[in-house]
């Protein structure tokens, strides 16, 4: 009961003029960083962070959190309209969102993506609020072996995510894993395969990789024929089309809940990297679908699943951040910096003393998610019209944005060169029917897999996976992978 009083209090807390003003400034900022390919949530946070010096805790953190929370909402729109992930995790949304846009259904896809983003974000907040009083034991359930196994679980989906044959999906995923092995290996401090280049000391970077793979092939396509993205449909996208998309989310309540739950859980486990959540949700949706073969050709479920997971994971990622000061996603690491700048030290003691602040942050997250989705839905018909722009106009403009965004992400001109290198790879993969999403998935998970396997073996020995939670994860893994098989078995058993 006391906790509910605290929640109500937290809810009232954000209705302060300064907090509201800060959020109103942060939300468009975050959205723009999501929409522009290359500029990601990390850059948004890094740029906003210095502004928090000298601010009060709640407005300071609201600035960071609100901007970060809505980045993926903005990124989903770019993924659908242009086939380019606005930020790397939106790559899963490209799979079905972009084909929808090409079929002239961009408005509907955007509506579905925005609605599931906003609602997924709310779901994440609910999870956070539910576990706030018991943060610590929840995080302590997940040690290094569990982190490793969850990373493995994510990796197994490379065969399922995306289109094309399983064989080609596996090749793409393995290539992603292999590319992630360049650069500094944390456990041995060896700059692996760095070939005497300062650039490779840190390995390949996700932004040039994701943009090269997805953006360059689309830009080439637009430029060769000079045709627009949408090849069917009416350029005057009506608002009703967007609303249809929003309604579609409510027509798939189970899918939405499942995907959001996946997002929140992946977010809670630090180390796996929230970037994985949308891919896992997509793969799960495809596997449990009655018509998995239609995924990849413009299935609205393929938009709802990754986008709800994408925003739900941020609520989950706040859990370890608040409980132990261990960031649950890359963005949370910078948010944590914000806490320290404001003189706050997240951790068990912190939650006992500043529960009200935790609740306040949950409310900020909720508000930002809903407000961002609402704003974007209003603009959606106009944004969708971009898909009807002539290719010869759109292609060079996109190229300029990609070049600027990539440079800005790290201030490194080499990144721009690598966009073209990976662009050539992406183009070849595209025309040969190798799906590019598994490559990204393999790339983002490899670091966690390698590091936590090493730690697990050194701390618990070779049989580290016999811990109870580990066994549960393994069971889920087997169930997930064998699902189509079990389904058939079950059907046969019912028939006899």
């Amino acid at each position, binding site marked *: 009961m006391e906790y509910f009083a605290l929640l109500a209090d937290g809810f009232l807390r954000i209705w302060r003029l300064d907090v509201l003003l800060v959020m109103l400034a942060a939300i468009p900022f975050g959205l723009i960083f999501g929409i522009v390919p290359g500029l990601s949530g990390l850059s948004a*946070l*890094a740029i906003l*962070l*210095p502004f928090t*010096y000298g601010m009060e805790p709640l407005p300071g953190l609201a600035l960071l959190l609100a901007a970060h929370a809505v980045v993926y909402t903005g990124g989903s729109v770019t993924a659908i309209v242009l086939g380019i992930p606005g930020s790397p995790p939106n790559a899963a949304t490209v799979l079905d969102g972009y084909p929808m846009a090409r079929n002239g259904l961009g408005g509907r896809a955007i509506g579905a993506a925005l609605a599931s983003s906003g609602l997924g974000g709310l779901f994440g907040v609910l999870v956070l609020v539910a576990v706030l009083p018991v943060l610590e034991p929840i*995080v*302590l359930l997940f*040690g*290094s072996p569990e982190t490793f196994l969850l990373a493995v679980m994510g990796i197994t989906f490379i065969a399922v995510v995306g289109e094309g044959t399983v064989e080609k999906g596996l090749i793409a995923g393995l290539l992603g894993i292999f590319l992630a092995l360049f650069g*500094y290996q*944390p*456990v*041995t*401090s*060896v*700059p692996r395969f*760095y070939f005497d280049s*300062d650039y490779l*000391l*840190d390995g390949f970077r996700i932004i040039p990789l994701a943009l090269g793979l997805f953006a360059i092939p689309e830009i080439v396509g637009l430029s060769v024929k000079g045709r627009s993205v949408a090849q069917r449909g009416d350029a005057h996208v009506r608002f009703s089309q967007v609303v249809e998309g929003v309604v579609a989310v409510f027509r798939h309540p189970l899918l939405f809940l499942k995907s959001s739950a996946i997002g929140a859980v992946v977010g809670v486990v*630090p*180390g796996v990297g929230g970037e994985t959540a949308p891919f896992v949700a997509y793969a799960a949706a495809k596997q449990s679908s009655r018509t998995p073969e239609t995924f990849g050709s413009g299935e609205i479920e393929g938009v709802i699943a990754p986008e709800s997971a994408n925003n739900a994971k941020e609520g989950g990622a706040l859990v370890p951040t608040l409980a*132990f*000061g*261990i960031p649950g996603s890359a963005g949370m*690491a*910078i*948010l*944590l*910096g*914000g806490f*320290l*700048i404001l*003189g706050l*030290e997240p*951790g*068990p*003691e912190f939650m006992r003393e500043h529960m009200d602040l935790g609740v306040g942050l949950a409310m900020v997250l909720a508000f930002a998610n809903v407000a961002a989705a609402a704003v974007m839905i209003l603009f959606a018909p106009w944004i969708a019209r971009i898909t009807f722009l002539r290719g010869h106009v759109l292609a060079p403009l996109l190229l300029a944005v990609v070049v600027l965004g990539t440079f800005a992400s790290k*201030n490194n001109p080499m990144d721009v060169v690598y966009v073209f290198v990976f662009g050539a790879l992406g183009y070849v993969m595209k025309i040969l029917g190798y799906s590019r999403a598994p490559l990204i998935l393999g790339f983002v998970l490899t670091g966690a897999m390698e*590091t*936590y396997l*090493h*730690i697990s073996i*050194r*701390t*618990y020995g070779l049989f580290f996976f016999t811990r109870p939670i580990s066994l549960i994860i393994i069971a889920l893994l087997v169930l997930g992978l064998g699902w189509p098989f079990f389904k058939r078995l079950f059907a046969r058993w019912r028939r006899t």
Partner: protein
Amino acid sequence: MKFDRALCFATVIVTALMFNSSAGAADAAEFYRGKTLLFMTPGSPGGGYDTYMREIIPLLEKKTGVTVLPVNEPGGGHLLAVNKTYAAAPDGLTILLTDGEASLLGQLLDAPGARYDLLKMNWIGRVNSEKRVILFTKSSPYKTIVEAAKGSTPLKFGTTGKTDATNIGATLTSHALGIKASIVTGYKGSREFVRAAIQGEVNAICLSESSSKRFSKGGRLTPVTVLARERSELFPDVATIFEQFKLSDDQAWYFDYHEAFAEIGRSIVSGPGVPAERVAYLRKVFAEILNDAEFKKHMAKKRRPISYADAAKLDKSAKAVLGSVSGARKKEIRHIIMDKYFQ
């Protein structure tokens, strides 16, 4: 006649030199006004290095009239930022708040990817250096470091990476005291191995004094010793390693060497070849900023204490770590830090 001419010439030169040196400082101040200065750090946004850098920037801008561009350049085990500073144009417009331990070790062990020579770089001043503290967890088989030195059950240290300060302290201590240790690398930062320590994955950590203070609060981590000749001000009750053991000269060498390592701490440095008067000017400016009583109080309140040291002292420490050891010693240190406890 000839002598006269020579004398005249000499006088001109001497006056010119004198004038130049007194004008040098003014020239340097003039040079920096209105320019853009790159201030690099290997720390990520929001971390310790970043906080120090961002707190210094407004003071630096006010004092010199430069526009400071903060640059976070993490990665390469904190070596990338040193590489970049070393390779920057020698105009004094690039400075680095460096990770002393990592950059010294990178050079000492000739780490792949380390492309710099600290002995050629220009030290500006130290922002902060901290003593190292060893902490045990509740799950540790030992209560004190003396027990651990005698015991046969291996002590499991958690560290971030091999070239990280957390690992240097753990390995040198284990070697000097003959502790049976096994070291687990790969944790992302001190907070993550605090999580691991609470879960019992590891049972010992070596941290800076301010971090130790932070994480020992809940009573789940116990500071057992300070790796220094003097006690830590933050832990007046924790005995130093020199108090707890009767160390032989050889054993003491490792701890003194480790302290010299830690001595550089978080220091400001600029690349080689920067004109002397600009270096002198930067040194003067930073000495003023870092000795300002109000700023020190402000930082102490944020639990980011300032402990200034001048360039001469830093130069001495760097030479002590890099110049004083023989080839055989280097090989031994490499073995201790990089291999011995990772079998």
